[in-house]
């Protein structure tokens, strides 16, 4: 393999990784920080794509406005779902199990609602103006939109890390996840915090959906397709750890990129294999701090 091919694969792996990360970032937030397992995270990703499509189609706005609208819409819907439904099962014994079941039912409902509203035809979203071409660097061709995505991914991970670890609201959010009662006793409005965090997580999901839409087709059923991959990233990187998720996604992206080049027959099995191996040797995730091994 010549060096320019290696670099090309590295960059395409990075693109793939960033998209994986962006989609998984919301799940990392809600699962790792909020301690809520939102199985329907992929459905909010899908909603984001449809909302972005609808914004452009109804109001002919530019792409970035549509993306913002998608994130906002997904966030609001997420908060409604949390407030109306998810909240009722907090504090139950076996809460984890019920969370999984309830959010699984969200997937079913959202899938059909999307079909009702938008039908089954494939919708399409164009790349934003100015980003439809590519740059040529030393014999390599890199689409400019891909570069934009990589940049956005880095911005998200840095912002998330800063907010969660350096700001007061971030620390409160993390603490609330660990011990709701204690935070309540300390005067924090726990229900409001939970709803807000959930909303931000779903907004991130919707944002990722809108960003990814120009590269993929906007179809029903997209929710179920991405949830497993997002889960793999979150688990490999460690729950609640944004840098972990980004690095986990990077590992997956690059492993995939080189598997495709070297052993194309088996590339599809690789991401599951990485997940399984990580979980066997370091179940709390490659970059997590707290251990989860039990008695």
């Amino acid at each position, binding site marked *: 393999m010549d060096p320019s091919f290696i670099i090309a694969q590295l960059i395409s792996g990075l693109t793939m990784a960033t998209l994986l990360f962006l989609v998984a970032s919301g799940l990392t937030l809600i699962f790792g920080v909020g301690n809520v397992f939102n199985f329907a995270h992929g459905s909010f990703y899908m909603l984001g794509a449809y909302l972005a499509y609808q914004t452009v189609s109804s109001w002919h706005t530019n792409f970035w406005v549509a993306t913002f609208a998608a994130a906002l819409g997904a966030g609001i819907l997420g908060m409604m779902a949390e407030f109306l439904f998810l909240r009722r099962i907090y504090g139950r014994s076996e809460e984890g199990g019920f969370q999984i079941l309830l959010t699984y*039912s969200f997937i079913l409902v959202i899938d059909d609602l999307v079909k009702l509203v938008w039908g089954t035809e494939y919708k399409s979203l164009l790349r934003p103006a100015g980003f439809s071409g590519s740059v040529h660097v030393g014999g390599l061709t890199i689409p400019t939109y891909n570069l934009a995505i990589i940049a956005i991914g880095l911005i998200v991970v840095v912002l998330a890390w800063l907010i969660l670890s350096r700001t007061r609201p971030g620390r409160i959010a993390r603490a609330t996840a660990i011990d709701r009662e204690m935070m309540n006793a300390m005067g924090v409005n726990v229900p409001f915090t939970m709803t807000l965090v959930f909303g931000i997580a779903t907004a991130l999901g919707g944002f990722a959906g809108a960003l990814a839409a120009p590269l993929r087709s906007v179809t029903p059923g997209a929710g179920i397709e991405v949830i497993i991959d997002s889960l793999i990233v979150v688990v490999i990187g460690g729950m609640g750890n944004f840098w972990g998720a980004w690095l986990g996604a990077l590992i997956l992206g690059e492993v995939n990129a080189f598997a495709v080049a070297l052993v194309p027959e088996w590339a599809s099995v690789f991401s599951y294999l990485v997940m399984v191996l990580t979980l066997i040797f370091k179940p709390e995730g490659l970059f997590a701090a707290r251990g989860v091994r039990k008695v």
Partner: protein
Amino acid sequence: MADTGRYKDLTFWVLLLLIFGLLPLVKTSSYQLMLANHILIWGMFALAFNMLFGVTGMLSFGQALYYGLGAYSVGMMVKYLGQSWFLPGIGLGLLLAALLSVLVGLLIIRVSGVFFTVLTLAFGQLAWQITFRWYHFTGGDDGIQGIIPPGILSDRTVYYYFTFAVVVMSIWFMRRLARSPLGLTLRCIRQNPERVHFLGRSVRLNQLGIYMISSILSALAGSLMAGVDYSIHTNMLYWTTSGEVILMSVLGGIGQSFGPFIGAAVIIIIEDVVGARTEYWSLIIGIIMMVMVILFPRGLVGEFRALRSRLRSLTVQKRG
């Protein structure tokens, strides 16, 4: 309390034996036979899952792995070696499930809670992906057809009674297990693992044991199913199949002796009724699930029992 428990058990047993035992004689079409057969098998699968989740609190989103393993053991034996290898195929499925569940169990029972769940999902999907893409060997997305049970079992009614017998025996075994010392230990582990550990019992070993048993029975369910439909498909290994069995358990009532079986019956019947009339079955099942989780977490059976004791205590109050 123990008395009423056994009393309720008896009711269920009688109903089960009567309804499913006599069905072939009163049915009006062979579709009803297939439906009942499906209910028996899914019911057993759901009860096997319930042993893990309901009794021990371990939420596995990967039981489809064993279900599919059982189905494919039978399917592949028949495909490559012939019809007479159907029953040995079932045996092979049980053996492989035992081996695999020990290996996987040792790896994943080290963690608890959502991590455990995610790991089971990972293993399940890995198995699905391998089976799906290794289609030269397994048939992949085409599945395997023409799996007809040998000898007298090729008659649908005879096979139905065969399934019925196997399922009844398995359920009896599971009930005994739930009341055995192992079952008691597992319920204690669910409430307070540390205490059990301090009492000198190995938490992990017990959990591994129940994981094995649950998985072996799931494989048995899968094997039986192959002989009902005469075909199998990689779909049986997909995570949504694991999701279905979880849904059935929740609907019926987790941890409520026969709840999951009833949940399976209700889901299968609803699927057929609703699926026939509307294309929005996803929405309906989703709403039902939401209602169950939020308002009726004890499931149909659990809520029914709670309602009954509430009514009873009301009448007692009135009298007194």
